[in-house]
């Protein structure tokens, strides 16, 4: 089958225009925000960057997962997620602002640990800076750079092995070598993905408050990323279907399955988030509750409520019925709700560290708009260069025929 290129289609033009608009608005707002309050802008940047690299890297994970489990149904939709990985260059460069702004963001990067505590006493009678000093064995700038380089190496390797092998096949009918390689390599890459995103989550998000820790945090970060990635895949597929671009490939079954996964993983996110919250609330140990105490006071609680409703309750009832999952309109609405809720959730994790009271304005939204615009720009360039469907995948026939 011939590659399905969307070059010069109205869809691609709209996607590019949309990304330019987001970048334009975002860049101005971010610049203004940065020069008025650099720390605040950087905090917003941590949210936006975590969001974007979550989508990009989890797109590759989605692809690797399809190979690892020998999925047939997803052959027609897998490429959309793979094109998210086109943002790999954005992800690499995106670490730079965090490295340069490190001293504004992470307490462990501050030069004088004493200023960190404000001289206060922490738990167990330790002075907080003593704990902070001990934590320097893991949380120090040099080791942080090493870890960032490791993450990047893993993700670039994943991009070249998984995504490029899949794309290469588009012009090679009846050549399944790429698939065979991916069938073998996807499983190790899933392990590397799990470890790299867990530790990237620890580094970028959890270490904003070094004395707080949760063993669940990696899973929490993953569950939000995964449902957001599925939602974006669903939205793009629905848009392509509505434009009539993939009529020969997409069927109700695919939307049904993407809808099911969105439904299932928004429940999974709720399960993980609830478990983390409930266990910390129930045990009520000071060093753990400090995290949620900040986040359920000062106006931040509304972000929490928003997450509960729009990350779980609304998608649950919206996508519960069997028939609605096959309607592109519902997939788009459900996907947008989940994507918004994921942004609010990450903001809820990051922003309360920097402000006791609810502080959310154009600064945060514009940084997000900038990063999301750049991300979509890279995705659009992927659509311009590569086929929108993995047309020569050995499972593609199965994907066109299966019934849910």
């Amino acid at each position: 089958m011939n590659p399905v290129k969307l070059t010069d289609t109205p869809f691609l033009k709209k996607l590019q225009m949309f990304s330019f608009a987001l970048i334009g608005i975002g860049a101005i707002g971010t610049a203004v925000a940065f020069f008025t309050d650099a720390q605040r802008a950087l905090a917003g940047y941590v949210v936006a960057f975590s969001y974007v690299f979550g989508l990009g890297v989890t797109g590759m994970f989605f692809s690797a997962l399809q190979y690892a489990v020998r999925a047939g149904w997803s052959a027609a939709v897998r490429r959309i997620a793979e094109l998210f990985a086109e943002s790999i260059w954005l992800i690499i460069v995106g670490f730079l602002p965090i490295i340069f702004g490190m001293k504004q963001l992470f307490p462990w990067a501050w030069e004088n640990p004493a200023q960190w505590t404000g001289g206060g006493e922490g738990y167990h009678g330790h002075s907080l800076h003593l704990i902070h000093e001990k934590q320097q064995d893991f949380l120090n700038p040099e080791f942080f750079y090493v870890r960032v380089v490791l993450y990047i190496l893993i993700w670039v390797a994943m991009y070249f092995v998984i995504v490029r092998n899949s794309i290469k096949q588009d012009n090679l009918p009846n050549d399944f070598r790429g698939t065979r390689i991916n069938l073998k390599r996807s499983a190790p890459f899933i392990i590397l993905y799990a470890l790299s995103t867990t530790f990237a989550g620890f580094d970028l998000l959890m270490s904003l408050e070094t004395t707080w820790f949760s063993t669940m945090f990696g899973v929490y970060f993953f569950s939000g990323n995964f449902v957001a990635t599925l939602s974006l895949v669903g939205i793009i597929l629905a848009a392509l279907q509505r434009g009539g671009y993939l009529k020969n490939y997409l069927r109700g079954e695919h939307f049904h399955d993407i809808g099911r996964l969105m439904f299932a993983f928004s429940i999974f996110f709720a399960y993980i988030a609830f478990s983390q919250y409930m266990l910390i609330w129930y045990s009520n140990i000071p060093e753990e509750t400090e995290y949620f105490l900040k986040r359920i006071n000062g106006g931040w609680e509304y972000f929490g409520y928003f997450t509960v409703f729009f990350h779980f309750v609304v998608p649950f009832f919206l996508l519960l019925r069997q028939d609605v999952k096959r309607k592109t309109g519902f997939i788009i609405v459900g996907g947008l709700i989940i994507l918004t809720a994921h942004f609010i959730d990450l903001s809820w994790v990051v922003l309360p560290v920097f402000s006791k009271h609810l502080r959310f304005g154009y600064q945060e939204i514009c940084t997000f708009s900038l990063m999301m615009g750049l991300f979509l720009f890279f995705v659009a360039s992927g659509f311009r260069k590569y086929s929108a469907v993995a047309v020569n995948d050995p499972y593609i026939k199965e994907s066109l025929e299966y019934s849910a």
Partner: protein
Amino acid sequence: MSATTAAISDDMRHADGYSAASMSPNEEPFREPLILGNPTMHDISRKIIGIIESEVTFKYLATLAITATLAVWGIFCIGYTIATGIGVWGLNNPVAWGWDITNFVFWIGIGHAGTLISAILFLFRQKWRTAINRSAEAMTIFAVICALTMVVIHTGRPWFAYWLFPYPNQMLMWINFRSPLVWDVFAVNTYFTVSLLFWFTGLVPDFATARNMVKSVVAKKIYHFFSLGWTGSTRHWHVYEVAYMIFAAISTPLVLSVHSVVSFDFATSVIPGWHTTIFPPYFVAGAIFSGFAMVMTLLVIAREILGLKDFITLKHLDNMNKIILATGMMVGYAYSMELFVAWYSKNPYEWATFYNRLTGDYAWAYWTMVSCNVISPQIYWFKKLRRNIPVMFIISIFVNIGMWFERFTIISTSLHHDYLPASWGYYSPTWVEISIFIGTFGIFLTLFLLFAKFMPMIAIAEVKGVMPNAQPHHHEENH
């Protein structure tokens, strides 16, 4: 079956209607068949019902006698515990939970694979589940029976076990709804009820097949009763399919909830090593891991003795070994997260507990757990070993040992070092506890042996649905 169909070589038949006809002949197919030997529909019914119809062999009776003896011995020890009191166990002041709760969590974990296979793999359209779901579900139910036995005797006064349920009473005494132990009562009972009903629903068409095929009049009557007047009409199948789907949807959250609630028993406390937020998904992954290992142990023997190699093929075992590898890695992830965060946090109590796990009095248990659960499944990265029967049998035993030690490690290492060094202790089980544990194996295996003899061991109707000639495009290709 027609001669043309029979002529198609095995590697070109694809159980799900997908054919890789365009591939060069020396390449292996992307989908392996799920049933070997090219049987007809009638062959399948005859094979499975044949197990029920076959004469009882001496070997079977001898095995049953051994397992039943163990069960009776275990039940005797339970009686001894109840009559004398829990003092006959080795529990002491810092270590108030020992083998009994370890066994409870162990058996609940074993009971997870059945529902995962019947519910989650069903929703994921994993057709290979059809050959193994029946026996896995049966195993689930027997394992939960063992688990419930363990908690009921642990209450100390099991004759008051009904106090665990909330009901209006003259004493105006209510359970503490905030206690995770009470959530457990609800979680485990719900799980048991739904699993039992799900299993029974799937059995109805097969009971009807058995009713039609068995010769003995008594057996016919019994299967007749349990097949609920099944006629195989379209209407019956329609209702059945809808019910099955709903059960699958209800059971899916149960797969996660039961072991999550069991993990809350530990994680809501303020005991280092117990209170850690990753416990719920970690316990669920561990439960699926151990459950699959137990299914593997039983099926490797069953397919050999009952001649089910064409139904439970190497492909099935390969898939199960992959799940064992995947869940083993998840458990390994959880172990490393616990350890890493204990070190990262610089919380002195957390780190003391984990350091003690690695090097203290129970280090042998910890390292047994790590070697069995994390290291031993790594050999499954190789396809040859995933398809090697002796290897998978040994690894499945290792995993069972490792998962038992995981619970033992969690329970005893966290308890035996109290916050006050003056109240540190050490726990070893008495012969009574060991006997009860062996006894639960007796109960479990006895029930499983009876199941294998008297019930359709493989879901006949479902297996027929994944045969190549049951697929929509089967006749269009390769002809």
